[in-house]
């Protein structure tokens, strides 16, 4: 089969690789009909995440048709159309039973590595380094889904791939980012990053009743899409984020702040972001936490920071004193996708939201490698890329 494989920093290739096989009795094999490039895939592309090996198949946003089922899988049958959440979950451990799907205790088959890195392992993931189990990813024609009687979401007839594909990651990720804020009707919710996750976080915050939603970015196309979703745009190249947020909140700051940027924050004219970039260049820092610093600073005391943005390693010079003294609540983590999929699928079916709004580019799988650079550099108005195997 054809698959997009990582071969090094900024080196993604469409290779011919062996087809996946059933390995465990609860597995299923999915024939991909649509998959997507996620913003967190760019961290792999840029060589920021440790634990990749040449030849690894990448991709964790995918959906398709079940073509083979393991003997113990009673949930799926051949022909079912499913969206597969990006985390692999056993459904039986203490964390899965609590609904903390993204920290499943059993699905990371390289648990020892992850224990050393993070203290305790988190769930296995498709196509996202050997630290998360080294599972082949879904930017391919076929994929093996372990524990396939737990996470795949069956899709009813009448919905296109484009409407439901993002149930596997970015829509629940934006949704959880907003839910974690426990939004109240008089809240201002400020969202850093108007990429795909940020776009869903903004719309989720609006649907959940925020008084006003603010989008912070410097890419005009992304800010125009954010405005279409009801957000007030702030272009940090043109104006001070701090001053504008004060103006919008009577000088008090937003109650809820969402970091939909993560470890690769843009270098701005601020001194701290320039120093981050320089330190990262000489490997004195792995992540760039400019957005975190800014959120801590501007958030209203007793407010909440919600962090869906992916970080991988170590950050420096974070104003923890401000965070502590202002009594900020921090909620973060990879998404517990299956907590939200039933409800979000219903909202899509009811017409409350159509996630396909975020797609700007659709290409064949073989054109996928070139789209990584397009997506990273935001060329051609690119916000979200869908790949068709």
């Amino acid at each position, binding site marked *: 089969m054809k698959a997009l494989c990582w071969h090094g920093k900024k080196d993604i290739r469409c290779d011919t690789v062996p087809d996946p096989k059933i390995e465990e009795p609860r597995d299923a094999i999915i024939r991909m009909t649509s998959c997507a490039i996620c913003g967190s895939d760019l961290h792999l592309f840029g060589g920021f995440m440790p634990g990749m090996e040449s030849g690894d198949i990448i991709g964790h946003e995918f959906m398709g048709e079940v073509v083979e089922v393991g003997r113990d899988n009673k949930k799926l049958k051949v022909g079912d159309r499913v969206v597969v959440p990006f985390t692999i979950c056993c459904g039986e451990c203490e964390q899965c039973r609590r609904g903390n799907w993204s920290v499943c205790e059993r699905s990371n088959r390289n648990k020892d590595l992850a224990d050393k890195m993070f203290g305790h392992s988190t769930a296995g993931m498709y196509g996202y380094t050997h630290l998360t189990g080294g599972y082949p990813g879904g930017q391919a024609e076929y994929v093996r889904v372990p524990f396939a009687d737990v996470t795949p979401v069956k899709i009813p007839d009448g919905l296109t791939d484009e409407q439901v594909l993002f149930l596997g990651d970015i829509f629940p990720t934006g949704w959880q980012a907003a839910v974690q804020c426990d939004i109240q009707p008089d809240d201002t919710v400020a969202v850093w990053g108007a990429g795909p996750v940020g776009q869903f976080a903004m719309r989720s915050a609006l649907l*959940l009743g925020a008084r006003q939603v603010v989008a912070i970015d410097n890419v*005009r196309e992304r800010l125009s899409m954010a405005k279409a979703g009801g957000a007030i745009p702030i272009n940090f190249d043109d104006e001070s984020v701090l001053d504008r947020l004060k103006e919008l909140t009577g000088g008090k700051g937003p109650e809820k702040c969402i970091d939909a940027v993560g470890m690769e924050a843009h270098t701005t004219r601020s001194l701290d972001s320039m120093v981050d970039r320089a330190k990262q260049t000489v490997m004195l820092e792995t992540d760039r936490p400019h957005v975190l610093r800014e959120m801590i600073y501007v958030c209203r005391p007793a407010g909440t920071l919600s962090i869906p943005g992916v970080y991988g390693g170590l950050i420096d010079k974070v104003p923890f004193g401000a965070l502590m003294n202002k009594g900020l609540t921090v909620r973060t983590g990879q998404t517990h996708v299956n907590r939200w999929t039933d409800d979000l699928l219903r909202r899509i079916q009811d017409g409350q939201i159509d996630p396909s*709004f975020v797609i700007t580019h659709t290409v064949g799988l073989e054109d996928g490698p070139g789209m990584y650079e397009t997506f990273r550099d935001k060329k051609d108005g690119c916000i979200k890329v869908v790949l068709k195997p």
Partner: protein
Amino acid sequence: MTRTASPASCPAGALRSAAQGLGIFSLALGVAELLAPRALARMTGMPGRETLIRACGLREIVNGIGLLASVDPRPWLWSRVAGDALDLSTLALRPGARPAAAPIRNAAMWMTTAVGVVDMACALLPDRARNDAAGAAINYRDRSGMPRPPDQMRGAASDFEVPRDMRPPEALRAYTTP
């Protein structure tokens, strides 16, 4: 490839590539000037001027960080041009120079001139990516993803109940509610 948008393309500019290369060059030169000022003073025919060489090294490092880290590298490129002019005049005035070192110093002046020309050429490059982006930004104003205008969709998911583990414990909830 199907684009659901139809914009002009915005390739990354030669300016940004040049800034990256000169940034690394500045950092490398600056570190060398800080760590080996005596050797560099000899090489440029200016023995005894190690403090000056170190100061130039600090300047190069600051320039290098600016070139690598800034969104707009142009001010830092012009800063390099100014630094080249300063270096050239320093070499020309030859403070503390020995007559026998003239060939070495002349070579250093030629090199500094060449680097200065490169720096100026890079500073004058158009920033095509930024110019293209400013002129051809796509407007996605019709992409709300919702069936009605945003103001009418506010609170449409008010039936959703936030899970207990994602809201403050009862004892920590605010006294007043909106």
